[in-house]
């Protein structure tokens, strides 16, 4: 079997295990390349269908094209699309762009906190109504007990420590030192009330694998990843005040693959354009312990 086939097969296996074991299952879709590949893999796993909701945390500072792309695919692929938002904080202007918070705390407020409360059902969820073609308040307030996330182990140090099925306690805490064993494709699927499991089907994929797969499967991506004549492109997507493009003239998937294979970025972290990672000496890890993805 080819490498991409192996990766695909394992991810599909994990998605199907998740579906078999969790009644309240959801997949986080950040609109980025990784979670879009994950979404595609879900369609592979379930014969073209996606039998669980896709959850997006909308910070209101996402690059507008991302939201447009999200809703276009959601309608086209008949996705059960749900988003959550920290409405209070936005109203009170408790954000970094408003000058009231530093980057890390803005992430905590608009992403981590919004995510936690959207997953638990404590805050309002907005669901895409396919007939009205707009978002309505979601009646389902049950907490999601299984959350599928598209993190990859090569992205960044703390993500390399993840399991495929990783428990989070009531406070969303991740106990890195005491994780359950995971062997022979047997995962932790039993969990105590109040806890939930994060499921990571893309753990073994690399950035290059992702692009090779996007090319092979012809998966639609947002044009933000490509140079549109300015010699710049985004390598990782986030909120516009804190995400910066890299120098690159790659105009399409093929050129990105070529660029990655030259090793141009071998020594530059993929998330180097994400400003929050650089604060506090261990930004992303600090965020992840609190429930950030």
């Amino acid at each position: 079997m080819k490498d991409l086939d192996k990766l695909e097969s394992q991810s599909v296996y994990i998605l199907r295990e998740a579906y078999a074991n969790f009644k309240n299952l959801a997949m986080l879709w950040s609109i980025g390349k990784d979670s879009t590949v994950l979404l595609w893999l879900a369609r592979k796993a379930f014969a073209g269908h996606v039998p669980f909701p896709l959850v997006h945390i909308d910070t209101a500072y996402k690059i507008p094209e991302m939201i447009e792309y999200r809703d276009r695919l959601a309608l086209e692929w008949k996705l059960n699309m749900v988003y959550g938002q920290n409405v209070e904080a936005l109203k009170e202007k408790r954000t970094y762009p408003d000058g009231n918070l530093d980057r890390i705390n803005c992430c905590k407020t608009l992403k981590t906190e919004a995510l936690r409360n959207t997953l638990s059902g404590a805050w309002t969820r907005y669901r895409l109504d396919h007939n009205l073609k707009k978002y309505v308040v979601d009646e389902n307030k049950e907490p999601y007990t299984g959350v599928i996330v598209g993190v990859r182990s090569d992205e960044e140090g703390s993500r390399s420590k993840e399991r495929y099925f990783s428990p989070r306690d009531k406070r969303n805490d991740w106990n890195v030192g005491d994780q359950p064993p995971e062997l022979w494709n047997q995962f932790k699927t039993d969990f105590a009330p109040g806890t939930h499991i994060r499921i990571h089907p893309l753990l073994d994929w690399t950035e290059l694998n992702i692009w090779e797969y996007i090319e092979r499967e012809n998966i639609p991506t947002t044009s933000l990843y490509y140079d549109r004549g300015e010699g710049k492109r985004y390598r990782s997507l986030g909120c516009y005040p804190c995400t910066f493009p890299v120098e690159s003239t790659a105009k399409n998937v093929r050129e990105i693959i070529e660029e990655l294979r030259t090793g141009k970025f071998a020594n530059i972290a993929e998330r180097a354009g994400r400003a929050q990672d650089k604060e506090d000496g261990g930004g992303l890890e600090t965020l992840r312990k609190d429930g950030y993805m």
Partner: protein
Amino acid sequence: MKTTEKIAEKMNIVIVGHVDHGKSTVIGRLLADTGSLPQGKLDQVRAECQRNAKPFEYAFLLDALKDEKAQGITIDSARCFFKSKKREYIIIDAPGHIEFLKNMISGAARAEAALLVIDAKEGVQENSKRHGYILSLLGIKQIAVCVNKMDLANYSQETFEKIEKEYRAFLKQIGVEPKLFIPIAAFHGDNMVEKSPKLPWYKGPSILEVLDGFENAKNLEDKPFRMPVQGIYKFTEEGDDRRIVAGKIESGKISVGDKVIFLPSNKRSEIKSIEIFNVPSPKTIGAGNSTGFTLKEQIYIQRGDVMCRIDEAQPLVGPLIQAEIFWMGKKPMVFDKEYKLKIGTAKIPVHLKKIKKIIDASDLKKADKEIIERNDVAQIVLECAWSMAFDTAEAIEATGRFVIVDEYDIAGGGIISALVRDEQADVREQVQQREMKWDFSIVDAKERAVKYGHRPKLILFTGKVGVDKKSIAKEVEKALFQKSSKTYFLGIGNLLRGLDADVEKQKTARREHVRRLGEVAHILMDAGLIVFATASNLNDEELRLLQEVTDRSSLFIVNVGKNEFTGSVVDLNLSEKDSVSANSEKVLKLIEAQNLLSPSSDASIG
């Protein structure tokens, strides 16, 4: 800019060994010497060490997490990547500290090859042995032993050979034959990527050369076909009417038109199509693929069943197995406690039946105790609540290994060495024959269920004499009948004075009564009915007999009064003190809640 060639091959390797014997140094050095580190990273860590006035160690390179730095020991199976000319390697670091054995196992279980590191000065230690043993249980056969820190042993050939001799002797006892022993000084890079002039007496390859000499996993397509069923999907959106049996093919290959059998349920059908999203349907597919099939006949199968080809060697079927396990649980494994066994996609209640021996993995001495404690390795007999399909690990690895779940956590892992013959073995063979030759109507089971509005079921009430099981059974039957279900109350007395009239009223006759009850219920279920039956004082083996004759997934077991089963699992317990109507209400509620009778559900048991 030069375009590097695409390296197609990848290999997962694991590096294990006793704490402080230098695993992290080996990894750090491999990364550094193959040019796999981010630019400036090494200098950055060196500078950091200088600032904190501590000697530089390669381990610091790998300490991606703050936690880890604080503790000074690797706590998890971090992954790092490096490339040789031959292939790309993924190193799964496995902690040496005994506290983190479960992390070491999680890492090592994914590896195709292993490097086992031993400190030349300290020699063979407890975890050198334990890790060697665990690698053998995990089925990792490609192992090289690195005798590290040769610089601290004056690059002495004598020291090296002494360690090689001692450790080889140990590994031989557990049936492991390492590919070779390599003297190294990882910190200085001796024999890591290049051969070292400081070890002129060593004529073998360097570590990287040894790694390149390992082979990728063998093709599993030549073994018999096995696919544990992950789910049966039917998504009706946009008129999709395919019913897809999904799973990952663990071994063998299969083609459209092949006849298949699902075990342990003995259901048969034929492959109609192979379904892969966004790809034209292939005619044949083999090991390693996560895929889906549609079948010619619509039969009731469930998650946990193993799909096999009828024309090939079949897996073993039974509830009793002999296994070797390692225990990682915080609480020990004890007798008289229900655990869950997960094998393939099946999950079955299980209990410890017998400890044959507990082995101290570090010295292979037999320990004399009645519980299996954390980090113990043991040879045991396990008894599942019902039959499962499996292979011995030697025959087919993927269907020959399992984990044990204690409450919410995976607490043990093991490999099956043999099927143990149980009391129901004869009847199981008879039932296999029956199912193999069963003459089917051209109305298939699924079609019938859809027409009747429910799937067939045997709802069995058991408990002591005088707990009024019969009244509850009749009440529930009536309630379901009134909702237009096709039901039948099968009175046990009616059988005794009729079908069973030839069986003498001796003690041994009871088993035959139970068997015939099962066979009659089986026919009535083939007719599509929901059958109600009562049986007083059923014991574990009698219940097992019924499970074999009718198949556990078509049974719903209600116990009235005190539950005296030890190894069997009932679906509902009722108190004999409650009224008949209250009890029948409970039965109806649970049937409803579990969607037990839905003709479209392929709900699993367990």
